[in-house]
């Protein structure tokens, strides 16, 4: 089971934050096919959040075929987003760590590293490399 959080200052609609958190967990393999998601009531009680927000998030995920709600039982994961990429993630994480160490040795601080990473990511996506 995963727990949700809400960042009221993120500017992102609360329901989209929930959608992203489920997708994130699916990508990283924290949620697998058949896993149960928290009930609407559990999320509402935990986050003090409007129930329609949770309903909207679950409906969006259901629409994308990622989860399924079974009446009387709960909501379950239908499909994972990790797929084959999960196996290669460990290796990629190791090379990223090496790069991060190098960046720190070069004197870059967290914010500079983030900026450099995001900038390079955008640049490479724009060129169609990644």
């Amino acid at each position, binding site marked *: 089971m995963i727990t949700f959080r809400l960042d*009221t200052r993120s500017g992102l609609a609360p329901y989209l934050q929930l959608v992203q958190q489920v997708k994130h967990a699916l990508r990283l393999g924290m949620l697998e096919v058949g896993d149960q998601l928290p009930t609407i009531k559990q999320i*509402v*009680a935990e986050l003090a959040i*409007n129930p329609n927000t949770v309903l909207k998030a679950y409906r969006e995920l259901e629409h994308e075929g990622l989860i399924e709600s079974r009446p009387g039982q709960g909501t379950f994961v239908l499909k994972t987003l990790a797929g084959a990429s999960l196996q290669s993630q460990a290796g990629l994480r190791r090379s990223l760590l090496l790069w991060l160490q190098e960046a720190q040795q070069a004197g870059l601080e967290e914010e500079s590293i983030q900026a450099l990473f995001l900038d390079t990511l955008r640049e490479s996506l724009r060129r169609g490399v990644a």
Partner: protein
Amino acid sequence: MTGALETMGLGKQYGDLWALRDCTLTVPSGRVAALVGPNGAGKSTLLQLASGLNYPSAGVVRVFGLSPRQDPGLVLPRIGFLSQDRPLYRGFTVAEMLTMGKKLNPRWDDALARRRLQHLGIPLKRKAGKLSGGQQSQLALVMALAKRPEFLLLDEPVATFDPLARREFLSMLLEATVEDGLTVLLSSHIINDLERMCDYIIILSAARLTLVGDISEVLDRHKLLISVRRDTDGLEHLHNVVQVTHTERQTTVLARTNGHIWDPSWEVHDVSLEDIVLAYLGQPQRDVPTVTMDRADEEVLR
């Protein structure tokens, strides 16, 4: 579907002063609606008229299609009202408050009340007046929920809470909306948390209604438009201009849009709910916009 609350031209006059005027709105069933506005805007008056504690000077108020003043026997068992001043008998113990609730309310759910109190760690033997402020408010909410209302009205429920008590109170309230399909109307002058809790908003300013609607729809429709200094005539032709600010070089408009902004000379930004509310508080409007939701997901949660 009839709304939990419907008003038409509703008004309340005290002497020469109108506390609420020309108020026409609907709160659909199953919603958690926020009633916002500065002190004296008419929030408490609207809540009192809706709960039958006061009678209108003008217009009509209906709760589940019925008049709370003319059919109190049919309306009152279905609604709960929590006023600002924690309505408890301070000399009663918590257990005595429950007994009173049981004797006065035909639909009283004693098991529910005891379960919630236990969960909150509120002792039954303690006198209500000896509980902390947060606990008194929680007890008042437990009492209101144990009545099993279908529509709960709360007047400034969390104004004086510390952050933890506020969160616990709201959790309990929102959980009840899932369990019981409860409709909630709560007044507040704290607007930073509303987007999280509520899905419907009613804005009052100076005794008048200035905006009603589904919150996500309200957020979708309102945009902040920025341009080099110019007039807004072309814009007003297609969209509703809520607020305009000119500086020497720049024009900034908060608009309720009726579709895409095609004019590329306007830079279009999203606006936070707080900024939208603040803009409407400044401007009593002649025609009250109702931002309605016409999507399929208007359903009551059970």
